[in-house]
């Protein structure tokens, strides 16, 4: 009986530790609309095709290089 009580107590302690675990931080793209799908407003930058991920990525890369990389403009 004493052994059973000890085992039960240990099991409860272990079960209590479950709450101390961390949830996995996986990407949850399903919770939001993908940015490459485009915004439904009048402020969308021209030069890329809404819904085309490759086009959106290329557009952002060009914007990064032209807008933020001084050395790409200075010979």
């Amino acid at each position, binding site marked *: 009986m004493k052994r059973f009580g000890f085992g039960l107590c240990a099991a409860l302690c272990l079960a209590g530790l479950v709450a101390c675990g961390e*949830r996995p931080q996986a990407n949850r793209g399903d919770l939001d609309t993908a*940015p490459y799908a485009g915004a439904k407003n009048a*402020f*969308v*930058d021209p030069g890329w095709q809404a819904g085309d991920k490759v086009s959106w*990525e290329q557009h952002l*890369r060009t914007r990064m290089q032209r807008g*933020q990389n001084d050395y790409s403009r200075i010979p």
Partner: protein
Amino acid sequence: MARMKFICDAERCIECNSCVTACKNEHEIPWGVNRRRVVTLNDGIPGEKSISVACMHCSDAPCMAVCPVNCFYRTDEGVVLHDKDVCIGCGYCSYACPFGAPQFPSEGAFGVRGKMDKCTFCAGGPEPSGSPAEFEKYGRNRLAEGKLPACAEMCSTKALLAGDGDVVADIFRTRVVQRGKGAEVWGWGTAYGSRQAGQAPAEGAKS
């Protein structure tokens, strides 16, 4: 595309606060809330350095780990966002965040804390991209408009870089090679792991 990241080049930041202004203007942030701010290290001492700080959209986000209602999520681009309809304004994320990113607007009587507000990397929230509902809660969704975060695009000296982690790291690396100093990237070790900041990872540390 790799995940979205911020880099602040402390050698270039002149503490002009244009990033702060651009952010507040773009998203119509209320008084008392600063999604981004400029911090000066060793202020007044020769050699002081300024850095622009906001949510770094961490790889292993502590805010996400401590949130009791699980309102945070990470997009496929690596941007850490949250759902204000789920947030209860408890403030746990504020204590957990090493960058002081979560902000709480005071609403109603007795300074009651409202829903948490933070930098969204100009990626809005769960509402349809570019919708008035999204703008009301989270501000403008510039990523869905094919633009980069307003703070980085408005930075007068291009100290603040934002975008694809590989591209911004490459831009920063070119600068460091050209000037021969200032290779320290403030906050990268904390946000993305010490290997990202060019240091050996500590024994048993998470990356």
